C-alpha cells in the first residue's frame, strides 16, 4: 500500500472507492430517489432482462440520475417481459412491458426526466412481496 500524503490524495482515493459502497448508502435512504425494479423471472432472464438492467444502471449513472436499480422476481407478465417497474418519488409505481434498449432509453429520457407517459404501460395488478 502506498501512503496517502495529503488531503487531496485522500479525496482522490475516496472518489475512486466511493462506488464500492454507494449502492449501500443509497439504499439506506430510498426516499426521494427513483426506484427501478427489473423483472427477472426465468422468462425475464431469457428475454434479456439482465442486459436491460445493466443498461439502466450504466445510463442512469452517466446521466446523473439518482436512482436505485434492483431486480425482482417474475412480475407475472411473462407475455410482456422484460418488464421494468419505475417508482418516481412520491408517486405510484408504473410498470413498462416489452422493454428493449430503445424503450429503456425512452423511460429514462421521457418518463423519469419529464414525467411523460409512454405506451406499453401495464396496469399494476400484480402482487409483489411488498404488498403482501
Amino acid at each position, binding site marked *: 500500500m502506498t501512503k496517502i500524503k495529503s488531503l487531496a*490524495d485522500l479525496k482522490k482515493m475516496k472518489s475512486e*472507492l466511493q462506488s464500492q459502497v454507494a*449502492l449501500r448508502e443509497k439504499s439506506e435512504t430510498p426516499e426521494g430517489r427513483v426506484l427501478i425494479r427489473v423483472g*427477472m423471472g426465468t422468462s425475464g432472464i431469457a428475454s434479456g432482462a439482465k442486459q436491460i438492467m445493466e443498461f439502466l444502471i450504466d445510463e442512469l449513472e452517466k446521466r446523473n440520475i439518482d436512482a436505485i436499480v*434492483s431486480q425482482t422476481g417474475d412480475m407475472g407478465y411473462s407475455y410482456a417481459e422484460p418488464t421494468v417497474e419505475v417508482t418516481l418519488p412520491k408517486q405510484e409505481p408504473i410498470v413498462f412491458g416489452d422493454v428493449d434498449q430503445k424503450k429503456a432509453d425512452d423511460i429514462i429520457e421521457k418518463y423519469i426526466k419529464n414525467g411523460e407517459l409512454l405506451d406499453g404501460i401495464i396496469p399494476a395488478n400484480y402482487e409483489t412481496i411488498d404488498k*403482501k
Partner: protein
Amino acid sequence: MAKYKMHMLVCGGTGCHASEGQMLFENLKKEVQDNNLENDVQVIATGCFGFCEKGPIVKVIPDNTFYVSVEPKDAKEIVAEHALKGRAVKRLLYFDPVRKEQIPDSKHMGFYKKQLRIALRNCGMIDPENINEYLAADGYEAMGKVLLEMTPEEAIKEVMDSGLRGRGGGGFPTGLKWQIASKNHADQKYVVCNADEGDPGAFMDRSILEGDPHTVLEAMVINGYAIGATKGLIYIRAEYPLAIHRLKIAIDQAREYGLLGTDILGSGFDFDVEIRYGAGAFVCGEETALIHSMEGERGEPTFKPPFPAQSGYLGKPTNVNNVETYANIPVIITKGAKWFSSIGTEKSKGTKVFALAGKINNVGLIEVPMGITLREVIFEIGGGIQGGKKFKAVQTGGPSGGCLTEKHLDTPIDFDNLLSVGSMMGSGGMIVMDEDDCMVAVAKFYLEFTVEESCGKCSPCRIGNKRLHEQLDIISKGNATEKDLDNLRNLSNVIKDTSLCGLGQTSPNPVLSTMDNFWDEYLAHVNEKRCPSGVCKDLIRYEVIAENCVGCTACARNCPVNCISGERKQLHVIDQALCIKCNACLEKCKFNAIAVI
C-alpha cells in the same frame, strides 16, 4: 473494478459469529462464484445490525431484504432464488410477532423505523476489516479537515458547539473536557479511549469497535490534535477478542496508509495508537482506575481532583473518552456542529445507543435520537412485551441506574430527565421487565454485582453494599420488618454520599428507585411475607390445583427430588417440606394444575 448490482451483507459481529456467521459468509461467497455471479454480487462481512437475537443476519442491497436466523446451508437457496431470480426467500424473512406477518425489508421493520444511526452509521454497512470501505464511506475526511483546515481551537469549538456529552455514563460535555485538557501544558499528553464496557449485558462499545474500528481511530487523532497529544491508548477488556482483532487490523491498515504515524496527510502532526488490555473488572472503567491499571498499578480509583485532564496517565494531562463518544466525532466534524445539535433535546444532543434486553420482543442494539420516549423504544422499536404480558418496569443505567415504571413511559429520554426520575443514562443498558419480575429480586441482583465488583478501597462501598445486599436477602426471605426498610433507605443514602468513586456513589440507585416506585411490593414482602410476582423462593409454594389435576403423573416423573406423590388418574400432592421450588412440575403440567402461591 466489478460493478456490483447486488450486495449481500452478512453480519460478522460477535453475536452472529457465534452462531455460524462465518461459515454462512463463506458459503455465500462460494455459491456466488459457482453461479458465475462474482461480478454482479458482492458478499461482504459487516459489523452488527443490532438484531443479534435473530442472527445470523443477511441483508441484501439494494432492496434491503432482511434475512434472519440464516443457517450456512441456506446460502444455496439465497443465491439461487434471490440473486439469480430476484425472488426473496420468504421463509427466512423476519416474522413480526405483533403484526403477525413477514416483513420484506428492513425499512418496514418496526425495529428500524425510529432509529437514527450516527455512532453506528457504518455498522452493518461496511467491511470493518477493509480500510478502503471506510474511506469510501467518507472515512478519515473529518481528520483531514481538522488537521489541514482547522486550528485546534476551532476543532474544540466545533465539538463544544455540537453539544456532545460523554456516552460512557457521566454525560460530561466533550468539548469542554477537550478544552480543559488543551489548556494544561505539558511535554507529553495522552488521549485514552475507554473501551472497558463493564455493565452487565452492555455491548454498545464492542459493536462499534467490531463494526467500525476506524471511526474510533479517526476520532482519537482529532482529539490528539485538538488537545496537543501525540499518543493514544485504547483500554479494552481482554474478553473482546473479535473487537481486539479488528482494532489491530485497523491500526495496521491506518499505519500503512500513513493515517496514523508521523506527518499525517502532510500536516506535520504525529499521532499513533496503542492497545492496552483490561482484565474485565467493572471498576476499571472508572477513568482514574483505568489509568492506574494502564500504569501497571492496581485498578483502583483515586480521589478527583486531580482530574485526568490535569494529571492522568504517568502524571500527564490525559483526555479520556468513551468509544461511542468518539464514534460521533467524525460526523460532527463533517456535517457540522449545527447539524448535530439540531438532533436531540435542549441539553442532550444527538443520539444514544442502547442495548435493549429483557422481556421484550425485539432484543438488540439500537440507536435513537435523544428525546425519544421510553414508550417508543419499548413498544415500537422493541415491539412490546414478550408473550403479550404486562409491562412492569424498565431498568436503565445498569448497576448505577434505576427502575422506571409505567408513569415514566412518556418521559423523553435524555441525561437530565433520567436523572430527575431517579435513574440515569449510564452507558446504555436498557432492561425491560414484565409482571413476572420481582423488584426486590432485581435490586438484589444489581447489589450482588456491585458487591462482587467493589474494589474495596473505601468502606462505605465495601461494607455498606454488603449490608445492603444482606438486607435485601432478608427481605426476600420474608424475615424483615418495616423498620428494616427505613434502615435500607438510610444506609443507601450514606453510601451514595460517602463513597470515593462513582461505583459506590451510584450503587444504591437500584435499591432506592425500586423502593420509590414499587413500595407496595417491598411492603408485601415485609408485612405479608408474600412475593407478588412469585419469584422469591422462600415466599412461594407450589400447589396442585385439585380441580385441574387429571393425574397424568408428568409432574411426579419430572420432579428432581421426587416430592410429588399420587396414583395414575388420581390427584397428585406436593410435599412442601421437600420441594426445592425448581419449577419443573409447573413447566411439565399440561393441565394448568400447578400454581405458584
